[in-house]
């Protein structure tokens, strides 16, 4: 196996594993702000219990997110050194900004969120929770900005020639607000909110099935469904807007997403399909004109087809097609499920609908798979470019890293990540089975100090 393939595999593997966790922290962060806000307003002990329980789940996802994120930061240098030399002037500043504006905020206030219940007042604690959620969003902003610059480079010029060529910033804000940043950011964040919300729904639905922690479970399900519904409807909008951007800025990617071969008006949108890359045909169920309409707001507008793109510049078509359609299918399914469950909950019938509750329990996998598929589609669809139309992926590799070295590190990371994943599932599972703590129904600012004193005296 060659270095290019192995390096891509290593990056795909380490980033996909990492990307299981940040969406959960971003989504749960928003929910924690809502829950703690409600507690601060109503002083209903149930909200306090919820805040405590979900904080522990949040801590678990955050820890693995941080531990695996540090790998990503350095992998640009280890595996993609030539790419790093080429884009460091532009891409590096977004990464450094992420450190200064996001990570410090997130991890600093995480300390107060996790360990500060009896060290600071309730308002200060709520403020810390808000800062952690904000930090998680800032982190998404800078990393999506950096990635979007690779999709639609802007605000730079090329200096030097041959192996000494590199991109240099000419306009920082044009780099930050490059043509795809905002669409991709909003779409990514909505996917993250859904990941967090569906985790909450899933655990709540599981408790309802088991007839445990009824009040806790119902509130979790309703709150989670509310956020999931808002985020998934917003995903439709942000997804549509992203796709319109792709149609203009990365026509090869859109053509691959839809297996669209001939540049024609009235271009069809596939619901499901199969791409025959050899014959240059796409078979499946298609709605005529819808792709043209969605891409350009006009059913007659021509959409660039793959035949107008040199084969050397085409991404893997069938793979992109299926990933893109998988994301859309799951996204649509989640909207329908959330709306239906919300209706049942509103009518007070949710607890008796075992089938819906089971669907809700397993729906936690939905946003995770859709987020992965969407991320993969975006990254695979950019190929063969690492920086669109500027630098090919094959030109971005490290010169001094051999295939054997990558294989060695892959074996190491596969073993470590498999262990981490097993431990994460085990701990999350035992956390869920243990359930919310009834001791958490107490107001920490009246009782924690007493409880600690009691425990030290051996009374608790």
């Amino acid at each position, binding site marked *: 196996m060659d270095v290019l393939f192995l390096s891509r595999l290593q990056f795909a593997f380490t980033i996909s594993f990492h990307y299981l966790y940040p969406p959960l922290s971003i989504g749960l962060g928003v929910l924690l702000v809502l829950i703690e806000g409600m507690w601060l307003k109503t002083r209903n002990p149930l909200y306090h219990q919820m805040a405590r329980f979900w904080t522990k789940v949040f801590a*678990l996802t955050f*820890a*693995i997110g941080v*531990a695996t994120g*540090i*790998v990503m*930061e*350095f992998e*640009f*240098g*280890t595996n993609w*050194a*030539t790419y*790093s*030399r080429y*884009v*460091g*002037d532009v*891409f*590096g*500043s977004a*990464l*450094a*900004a*992420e*450190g*200064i*504006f996001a*990570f*410090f*905020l997130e*991890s*600093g*206030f*995480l*300390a*107060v969120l*996790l*360990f*500060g*219940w*009896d*060290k*600071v007042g309730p308002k200060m604690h709520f403020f810390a929770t808000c800062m952690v959620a904000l930090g998680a969003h800032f982190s998404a902003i800078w990393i999506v900005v950096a990635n979007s610059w690779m999709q639609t480079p802007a605000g730079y010029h090329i*200096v030097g020639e041959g*192996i000494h060529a590199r991109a*240099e*910033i000419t306009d920082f804000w044009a780099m930050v607000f490059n043509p795809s940043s905002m669409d991709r950011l909003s779409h990514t964040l909505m996917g993250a909110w859904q990941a967090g919300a569906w985790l909450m729904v899933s655990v709540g639905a599981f408790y309802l099935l088991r007839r445990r922690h009824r009040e806790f479970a119902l509130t979790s399900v309703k709150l989670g469904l509310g956020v999931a519904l808002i985020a998934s409807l917003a995903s439709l909008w942000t997804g549509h807007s992203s796709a319109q951007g792709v149609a203009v800025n990365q026509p090869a990617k859109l053509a691959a997403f839809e297996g669209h071969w001939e540049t024609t008006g009235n271009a069809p949108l596939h619901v499901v399909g199969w791409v025959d890359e050899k014959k240059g045909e796409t078979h499946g169920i298609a709605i005529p004109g819808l792709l043209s309409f969605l891409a350009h707001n006009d059913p007659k507008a021509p959409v660039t087809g793959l035949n107008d793109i040199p084969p050397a510049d085409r991404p893997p078509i069938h793979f992109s097609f299926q990933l893109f359609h998988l994301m859309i299918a799951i996204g649509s399914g989640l909207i329908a499920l959330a709306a239906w469950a919300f209706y049942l909950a509103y009518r007070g019938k949710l607890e008796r609908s075992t089938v819906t509750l089971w669907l809700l329990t397993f729906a936690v996998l939905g946003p995770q798979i859709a987020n992965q598929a969407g991320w993969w589609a975006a990254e695979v669809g950019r190929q063969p470019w690492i920086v669109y139309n500027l630098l090919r992926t094959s030109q971005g590799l490290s010169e*001094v*890293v051999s295939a054997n*070295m990558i294989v*060695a590190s892959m074996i*190491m*990371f596969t073993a*470590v990540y498999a262990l*981490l994943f097993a*431990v994460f599932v085990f701990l999350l599972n*035992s956390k869920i089975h243990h359930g919310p703590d009834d001791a958490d129904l107490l107001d920490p600012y009246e009782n924690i100090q007493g*409880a*600690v004193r009691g425990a030290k005296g051996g009374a608790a």
Partner: protein
Amino acid sequence: MSFGSLDLNTVWFILVGVLFTGYVILDGFDLGVGVLHLFAARTDHERRVFLNAIGPVWDGNEVWLVTGGGALFAAFPDVYATVFSGFYLAFMALLCALIFRAVAIEFRSKHPSALWRRFWDLSFAGGSIFSAFLIGVAMGNIAWGVPVDARGEYAGTFLSLLNPYALLMGVTTVALFAMHGAIYLVLKTEGELQDRLRRWVNPSIIGFILCYAILTPATLLYVPHVVEAFKREPWFFALVIPAVLAIANIPREMTRQKHFFAFLSSCAAMVGLMALFGVGMYPNLLYSNPHPEHSLTVVNAASSQKTLGVMFTIALIGVPIVVAYSASIYYIFRGKVRLDRMSY
């Protein structure tokens, strides 16, 4: 070249140095706690005290490394690319060690089984020792110089990273972090455990001084480019004095029971050592040995003036805010460790 003309490149040399110095001081005591974890703590309760001593802050401390890496990428992309691709396997091993250290802290207390806790204790201690050692080895190689070819690519092998000078620097770093961590733990504990930890401080200082006593003449004898830098600017030697005084002050403060001042002295010593390292390297970021003309410097490996300027603005806005709230968070969690329901 001297520090006299303070251009943006030099400013970023200093800022990257400040970020890594912040990392060494802050995560230094976290890693030091990990180095001592298996040896100085005996019971489950004591090990929990160790973890909770760094519990609220270790994560923020590690961010200094991430931000330092990001700043290096942005300000000196060629150095970032050459070092991390050149040290590929060593770096992957460091990442694994840091992962184990991090998740062990979070996971250890989540399950009561003795086997479970022993596994994560080993992960925490092993991850910390190995991380500290590899950080030292990397610094040792950078001080010694690594082979760099005409295109600025690393021209050595994995094994050439394991030269005696670098290995000695690795051991020195473990000893330094152990000393730093021991002092921090004395600060965070009380009673019988504190008495026992206090007895760990002096041997760890002696261990560190022994290593350093071998390292310094080795540097003077075998690392001529560092000596050259000091010959050019003899006032740099003035930096040695506060560093040595700071180290010497630690046992004095310990006997006076002024543990916080002992910890500050330890921090000051680390600042002094990192400053010495910095002035010894300048203007090189990666010294090429045996072909010094291929060295990566603050001039030939830097980003454009535009980027250095933009980043400087980002740092001017961001760093004071970060320092302010980080200090408040340290203040909130001051005092001795108390275990409660939310502790690890």
